[in-house]
């Protein structure tokens, strides 16, 4: 079976398609680019750059540790380097490159033309760049973060880290995490709503499954570190004592929030890497994967279990042994679904006809290294053993076996495998094999001795050690291995770079792949598929759909090959069974994502340097850029409604799915804020602390909630109910919604003012203020959305943009009402339930 068997319509005239999907030429086009392939490639290339920088930092550290009592690095420089090495690898390399690979490949694999919100995708990339820039600007100002990639309090608090080092870390990481969340939103929606007709969940490529699971995990995990970072930054800037026991806070709150993010983070990196393996193993074994369903179920099980393991990073913090037992059991059991996947790949190799080319060699390396890392993982899941090796080099060895073996090796397999699709040229096999063997040997020489060093008591994060401890020989071996490993990485990257410039041109399907990305050219055209495909199998290239498999869909899809000028159309399918549902119209290139991200970064820098005018300029710029971004543009919505029969817009548009997913992220953020409040309430001895003013009765809070619901109802009533009919969309009702929203805001603010809270003295008060501020900010955004929608409704009348905006606004106000209900429950209801009244 070859790519030629799947009709992608490349023979048809495609000029209009190309001009509709292609960014303008030159620098302006580069800055405006929104196409998933351009943005995905940028993520991959930028992350590879960060890999080299982070790797260079580790080389300096290994050089320092290569012998006892060396002075290559000062203690402070060592602290800064291990902090930035971990931060770079976790936040700037691993997750962005895996998401970037997903952004590039997933739309191709599921038969889509682009991600559902191309501009949001570009915005996410710029946020990532600016976040990384802020983190590395710290080297220029001499304030490099030095509190570890985990930034534990109280070390990272204002008392022990008074400089701006940790501010660089907190603000930079927050921007990068927001970028990660936006990427995850894109991936979830493209997978659930834009799959090829016929691609029900049980026919989805395993790589797409892994990206779906990873993205869902990001939506639940990343908000935890965003909340933790925001609270710490507020503490550092204002003195609000969230993590300070003297003010009624608790430093362990940071560890809980951080590891609720941090442990799933390991699997957020690991699962897409296993998706790469599940994509490569069948291709190089020349047979369908064995245990498709088992792999999918294992991925879901691992994702869920990973959210119940965070306490195993806190085994030595003094928690009761029974709590440790609960988490030890769950930690050990994650080995079951992990093992199931490994056995499925081994079985596929065993019963296939493997071709031992570079990608498969990296997979084999993964299986060896990751299995060893998994075994030591089960060892440290047992808390008596963990207590012995905690903060020792045993743990360093364990997590490098898991992360380099589990992420870098599969990732490199994937890069070699898909490089022809990314750049249109074939990488060198011989250089790939040299890179693999150098990396494999170098890695084991570097990290295996660290197990022994850890068992002999060598602690982590110490910049040197005395000669008499006898750690010198193993450390020297480890350093030599690390340099060999780095040489292997350099050979690998050189191969990619050299190929991209002057390698032989790649054919469409150089490996005989089974998934849809191989059905189009290498690299693909800007629109991916002239005629989006229909599928009837999990291996659409090995078992292509017969003509007429879905006549309804095929009739419409054929017409997408010849769109009106400048119109970008993309099929929509149902989430579970992949039935063709209609067509979405996507926006094109724009400067607004870059401008918005830049304005946000300016606001962040303002916070960093305590410059209020700069914060105001950045925040105003962000607001103005958002308005410019979302304003309706001619030609992007509703143009082909009558031609195609059913273009999905208004309340059924992809935008509403995006709003719903965004609302879910807000709900998760709020849940973590509430968790922080309740954690402090149950962990601090006197809560609320003495001197706290009594809270009012629940009644005013209920009143504010009712006003929020009234705003939601008003917006719902103002929504056009008959799309395409001539009824006016009720600009007045949308405006009324904005007015009622202002009333709700005023009511909430008045309640808050009456409380007389002192956020800088008591963690209790600070937490209440943060919870109210959260709802206040989203309510303010709701008022803005309503007012803007009302203005556009008055201007445009019955327009799909207004319909979609009103639907989004109605969703938003429902979220505000629910958020307020949650806050009121936590703040006002909880104390009354416990009878403390305060």
């Amino acid at each position, binding site marked *: 079976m070859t790519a030629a068997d799947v009709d992608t319509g490349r023979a048809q005239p495609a000029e209009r398609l190309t001009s509709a999907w292609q960014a303008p030429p030159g620098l302006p086009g580069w800055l405006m680019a929104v196409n998933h392939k351009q943005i995905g490639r940028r993520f991959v290339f930028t992350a590879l750059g960060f890999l080299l920088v982070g790797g260079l930092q580790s080389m300096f550290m290994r050089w320092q540790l290569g012998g006892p009592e060396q002075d290559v690095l000062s203690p402070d420089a060592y602290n800064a380097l291990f902090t930035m090495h971990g931060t770079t690898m976790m936040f700037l390399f691993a997750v962005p490159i895996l998401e970037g690979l997903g952004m590039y490949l997933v739309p191709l694999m599921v038969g889509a033309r682009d991600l559902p919100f191309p501009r949001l995708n570009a915005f996410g990339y710029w946020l990532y760049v600016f976040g990384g820039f802020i983190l590395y600007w710290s080297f220029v100002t001499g304030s490099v973060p030095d509190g570890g990639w985990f930034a534990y309090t109280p070390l990272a608090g204002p008392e022990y880290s008074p400089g701006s080092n940790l501010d660089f870390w907190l603000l930079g990481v927050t921007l990068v995490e927001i970028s990660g969340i936006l990427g995850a939103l894109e991936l979830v929606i493209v997978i659930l709503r834009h799959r090829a007709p016929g691609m029900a969940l049980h026919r989805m490529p395993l790589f797409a499954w892994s990206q779906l699971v990873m993205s869902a995990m990001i939506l639940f995990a990343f908000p935890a570190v965003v909340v933790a970072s925001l609270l710490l930054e507020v503490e550092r800037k204002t003195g609000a004592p969230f993590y300070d026991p003297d003010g009624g806070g608790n430093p362990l709150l940071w560890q809980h929030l951080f590891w609720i993010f941090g442990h799933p983070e390991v699997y957020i990196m690991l699962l897409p890497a296993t998706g790469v393996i599940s994509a490569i193993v069948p291709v190089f074994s020349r047979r369908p994967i064995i245990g498709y369903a088992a792999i999918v*179920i294992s991925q879901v099980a691992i994702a869920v279990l990973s959210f119940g393991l965070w306490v195993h990073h806190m085994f030595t913090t003094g928690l009761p042994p029974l709590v440790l037992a609960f988490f030890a059991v769950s930690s050990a*059991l994650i080995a079951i679904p992990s093992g199931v996947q490994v056995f499925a790949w081994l079985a596929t190799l065993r019963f296939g006809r493997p071709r031992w080319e570079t990608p498969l060699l990296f997979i084999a390396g993964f299986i060896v290294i990751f299995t060893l890392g998994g075994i030591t993982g089960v060892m440290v899941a047992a808390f008596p053993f963990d207590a012995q090796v905690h903060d020792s080099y045993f743990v360093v060895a364990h997590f490098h076996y898991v992360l380099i073996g589990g992420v870098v090796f599969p990732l490199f397999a994937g890069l070699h495998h898909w490089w022809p699709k990314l750049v249109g040229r074939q990488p060198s096999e011989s250089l790939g094999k040299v890179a693999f063997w150098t990396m494999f040997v170098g890695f084991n020489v570097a990290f295996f001795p660290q197990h022994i060093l850890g068992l002999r008591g060598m602690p982590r994060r110490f910049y040197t050690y005395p000669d008499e401890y006898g750690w010198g020989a193993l450390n020297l071996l480890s350093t030599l291995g690390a340099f060999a490993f780095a040489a292997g990485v350099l050979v690998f990257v050189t191969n990619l770079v050299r190929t991209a410039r002057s390698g032989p041109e790649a054919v469409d399907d150089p490996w005989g792949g089974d998934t849809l990305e191989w059905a189009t050219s290498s690299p693909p055209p800007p629109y991916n598929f002239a005629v989006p495909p229909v599928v009837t199998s999990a291996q659409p290239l090995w078992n292509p759909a017969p003509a007429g498999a879905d006549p309804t869909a095929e009739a419409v899809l054929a017409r997408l090959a010849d769109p009106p000028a400048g119109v970008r159309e993309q099929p929509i399918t149902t989430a579970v069974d992949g039935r063709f549902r209609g067509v979405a119209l996507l926006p094109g290139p724009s400067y607004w994502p870059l401008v918005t991200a830049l304005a946000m970064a300016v606001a962040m820098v303002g916070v960093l340097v305590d410059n209020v005018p700069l914060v105001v300029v950045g925040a105003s710029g962000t607001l103005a850029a958002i308005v410019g971004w979302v304003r309706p543009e001619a030609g992007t919505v509703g143009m082909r409604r009558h031609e195609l029969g059913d273009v999905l817009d208004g309340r*059924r548009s992809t935008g509403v799915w995006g709003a719903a997913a965004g609302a879910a992220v807000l709900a998760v953020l709020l849940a973590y804020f509430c968790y922080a409040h309740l954690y402090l309430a149950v962990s601090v001895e006197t809560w609320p602390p003495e001197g706290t003013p009594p809270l009012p009765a629940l009644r005013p809070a209920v009143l504010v909630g009712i006003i929020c619901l009234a705003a939601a109802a008003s917006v719902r009533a103002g929504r056009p109910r008959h799309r395409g009919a001539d009824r006016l969309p009720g600009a007045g009702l949308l405006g009324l919604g904005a007015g009622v929203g202002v009333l709700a805001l005023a009511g909430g603010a008045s309640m808050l003012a009456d409380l007389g809270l002192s956020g800088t003295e008591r963690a209790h008060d600070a937490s209440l203020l943060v919870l109210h501020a959260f709802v206040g900010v989203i309510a303010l955004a709701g008022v803005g959305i309503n007012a803007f929608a009302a203005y556009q409704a008055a201007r445009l009348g019955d327009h799909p943009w207004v319909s979609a905006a009103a639907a989004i606004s109605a969703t938003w106000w429902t979220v505000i009402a629910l958020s307020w209900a949650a806050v009121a429950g936590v703040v006002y209801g909880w104390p009354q339930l416990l009878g403390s009244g305060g």
Partner: protein
Amino acid sequence: MAGTEARTRTAFAGSRPHSPPEAVRALLLASVGPALWFGHLNASYLLVPPSCEWRHGWAFVVVTAVALAGISGAGRRSWALWDPRSHDGPTVVRFLGMAGVVLAGLFALTTLLVGASALVVHPCH
């Protein structure tokens, strides 16, 4: 072209706007096991201090029994959707039914072992 247009519109007019309810039901059932395990884990965590105060671990037995009952109920319903004895080809509902059964089994085991920890380790230790 006019014929295609008419067929397209007719087909859309009669098509379902969402995935079929049995598929959505299968998906929800598959999520019951993981959700109950997560709830059980956190409830058990929260119950440690009060259980020490009560000097008894009966609360762990109760929450474990409730969670296991819920998980096994969802697993049984998923089994009916999977119907492994059927000779029909793979469908998304059967696929999700199988996922529900396997996830229920795995998370029942995890829940059982988490609950059993309370029989071995005293909450006051």
